[in-house]
């Protein structure tokens, strides 16, 4: 399930066409591993400390969603580039029940689980690009990007 490296040509030039790193999400420990993977990439992309923290926090929320709501899945994370800017892209993918009402799911305080309902909406605020792709019965894919300033 590895995403092809930069279908839109945004994978960092000169990085040897590295494929996205994949971290399965099957347990609490895996959520911690996703944070560590994303943190490592954020440091490589030279994100500021605050931006690293925002990205890792968003990744933590989304990885937990994949585990709790999607019944497990995986995270795919990679370095991306746009002009001279570097960034980190991470996708969170599951084959779970999917989301029927995307608008509602992105509303602050809306929750179906054990959280505060800030997972999706909060994560969206913490990153530069956010894409939610989901259909009932067809799983969920959330892709985020954070760029170095």
């Amino acid at each position, binding site marked *: 399930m590895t995403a092809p490296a930069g279908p839109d040509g945004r994978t960092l030039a000169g990085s040897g066409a590295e494929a996205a790193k994949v971290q399965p999400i099957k347990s609490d420990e895996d*959520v911690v591993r996703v944070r560590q993977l994303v943190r490592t990439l954020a440091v490589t992309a030279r994100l500021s400390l605050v931006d690293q*923290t925002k990205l890792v926090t968003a990744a933590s929320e989304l990885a937990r969603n994949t585990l709790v709501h999607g019944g497990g899945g995986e995270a795919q994370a990679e370095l991306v580039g746009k002009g001279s800017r570097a960034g980190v892209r991470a996708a969170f993918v599951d084959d779970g029940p999917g989301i029927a009402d995307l608008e509602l799911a992105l509303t602050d305080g809306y929750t179906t689980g054990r959280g505060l309902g800030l997972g999706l909406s909060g994560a969206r605020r913490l990153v530069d690009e956010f894409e939610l792709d989901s259909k009932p019965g067809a799983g969920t894919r959330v892709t985020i990007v954070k760029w170095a300033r």
Partner: protein
Amino acid sequence: MERIPVLKIGDILLVSIQVDLEDQSAIQLQDDLAEQIVATGAHGVIIDITGLEIVDSFIGRMLSSIASISRVLDAQTVVVGMRPAVAITLVELGLSLRGVRTALDVERGMQLLRRDRPARSTDLNGGGPTAALAAGQPVFPRPAAGAAP
């Protein structure tokens, strides 16, 4: 799963989180603290999060519930050592840590707990002049806004 140690210093319980916190460890810590407060009769809990690189909505909710649980058990909770980047991220995520008292470091957290205790012990009649004095608040009510000629 890593278990976070709870230390007892006088009538204060000190928890220093030094690992990347798994959700299960956070829940375990909440249970351990509730038990330790009752077992030791502690009146204060200090949670040092200097070692935490992120606080997401799950960890934030855990901190809030520890504060609420300990309040019901007659103990005050102070969260200390939050990193600046974590504070910025928390606010943007939309977490207010309602009901959680904070201090910059363990020493100031201890001072806060010591300062509060005498005021609380005279608070049997719902406050009053003695409690207000001990808490360093004005004893006489100020004229209501707009009451001045």
